[in-house]
């Protein structure tokens, strides 16, 4: 009979009309500014720089090795090395970035910088409300704006962060043990008292990223 298909279709829309009031599966819209979806652990938007401790600039894990700048597909990272070195979490002197800018109007959120970073220094953020009136200056973020504490990273990517933290802790203990062994020979004195801020509590782990066996061959600053 002609018209049956049309009637079937109309029954379907009526079912959806009624269903949108009763069935949450049918009305999946999220009323955005008021309610937000719970964050997904793997989600990524733009990169940020991880630091340990309380002083953001002193605790930056970044060693200005330039790998991310080189690998970034849209070339949105700009780094200038600082001449002054600072000690890292195991007490070794490392280069630090003088300038670390990311143009997030160019960034395409691919996360390749994170994958290639041998120091776990750059990670993906999950903020998405990035709109601004100033389309040039407002979207060019420098290292002070990019720096976020490690606790923030732990909050966002729990699994990955705990893995990294455990590794860094192990690394640190090893380094401390080595330092202690070295120091035990002449005199047991804790060496890195003045140079390093004391509140470097949670920091720990080895530089290479967990799954990627990439070696920092091009890294100007040695990791160990």
């Amino acid at each position: 009979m002609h018209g049956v298909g049309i009637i079937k279709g109309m029954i379907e829309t009526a079912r959806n009309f009624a269903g949108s009031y009763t069935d949450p599966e049918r009305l999946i819209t999220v009323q955005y500014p008021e309610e937000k979806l719970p964050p997904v652990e793997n989600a990524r938007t733009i990169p940020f720089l991880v630091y340990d401790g309380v002083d953001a600039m002193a605790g930056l894990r970044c060693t200005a090795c330039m790998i991310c700048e080189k690998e970034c597909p849209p070339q949105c990272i700009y780094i200038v090395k600082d001449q002054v070195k600072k000690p890292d979490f195991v007490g070794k002197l490392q280069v630090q970035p003088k300038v670390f800018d990311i143009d997030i109007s160019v960034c395409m959120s691919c996360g390749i910088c994170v994958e290639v970073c041998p120091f776990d220094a750059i990670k993906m953020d999950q903020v998405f409300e990035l709109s601004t009136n100033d389309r040039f200056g407002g979207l060019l973020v420098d290292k002070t704006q990019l720096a976020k504490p490690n606790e923030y990273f732990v909050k966002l990517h729990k699994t990955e962060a705990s893995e990294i933290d455990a590794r860094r802790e192990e690394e640190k203990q090893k380094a401390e043990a080595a330092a202690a062994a070295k120091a035990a020979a002449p005199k047991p004195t804790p060496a890195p008292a003045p140079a390093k801020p004391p509140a470097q509590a949670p920091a720990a782990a080895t530089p290479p990223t967990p799954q990627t066996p990439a070696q920092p061959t091009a890294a100007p600053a040695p990791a160990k």
Partner: protein
Amino acid sequence: MMATPSSTDLAEPPSGNPLLEVSLGPQHPSTHGVFRMDVSLDGETVVRLKPVFGYLHRNHEKIAEKCTYLGSIPYTDRLDYICSLTNNWAYAMTVEKLAGLVPPERAEYLRVILSELTRLINHSALAGFLLQDMGALGTPLMYAFREREKILDLFESLTGARMMCNYMRFGGCRCDLPPGWIEQARSVVAKFPSFLEEFEALLTGNEILLARTEGVGVLPAKLAVNAGVTGPMLRASGVNYDIRKVDQYGIYGRFKFRVPLGERGDVFDRYMIRILEMHESLKILDQALREIPAGPIMDPKAKLRNLRPKPGEAYGRIEGPKGELGFYVISDGGPNPYRYRVRPPSLINLTILEDMCLGQTVADVVVILGSIDIVLGEVDR
């Protein structure tokens, strides 16, 4: 402007009326992006149609030649932005051929699962857009997007992004499944048939849809083969050619599924083939989600950075949702490809638009264009 009876370069149309020259696009509600068709109309009948594209050209191939091998992967996401994962796969496969890498078992399963999920997304969105072009005011599109959303959630929890997944790597995949992902995927796959049922109740028997699609935009099998058309469009014309079966790339040889073939090659067949393919994709997903083994997801030989394949060339192709998606890469031993070329199914399927549209009306043109299933990101690159 009023039609002028000039148009000297054209033969007089049969009815003797002056032709109406209309430029459909580039800003037109149903050209699926920025695509333009110069159409000459006799009344409402198309007597000439000239596709004009390139409005979205962004130098993809040249950028890839200046980028490292790794750096091109996120760019492939943006080719056909509805199916980023299949694009990833095709490119990763090509470079794997070039560099002699072999992805482990688990990664192969993951790739199959993700690409079949992508196929579901693409086909349901296409049916929605097709009906949108037909004037169904977005209802089928919204239903399709509702389901797509669930699959995109899966993608997000695995790859971190909903559309620009950037997931596959040379020799495997970027990261392993988060806990509970397989169960979530199973439940999505289990619920999908009910959506297909709903979709078919809404559309497949609808007399208006039948009237609009049957016998419209017929593509004969011979013309389709000669024009290099691939994918569901070719199969709707009755040609049995599915690269999943022909090449059995990846581990597709292990799965039991069938390839639906159309009868007449009109718009209705193209619509219906996609619906039937979704059913087959569900079968593959069912098997893959059941059999996926544990194990590593990266080839131990693979390294992320500084990939310098030996000089040589490789062509890798997969059955993308839209057709044969191929990448051709030449290496000169350096860190970036010497030549990089994409075979975009959308572009090649689009080339026969005029042949299908001549003699049809304006209203049919948008429906035929919709049934080709193009994404301008891939057409223009």
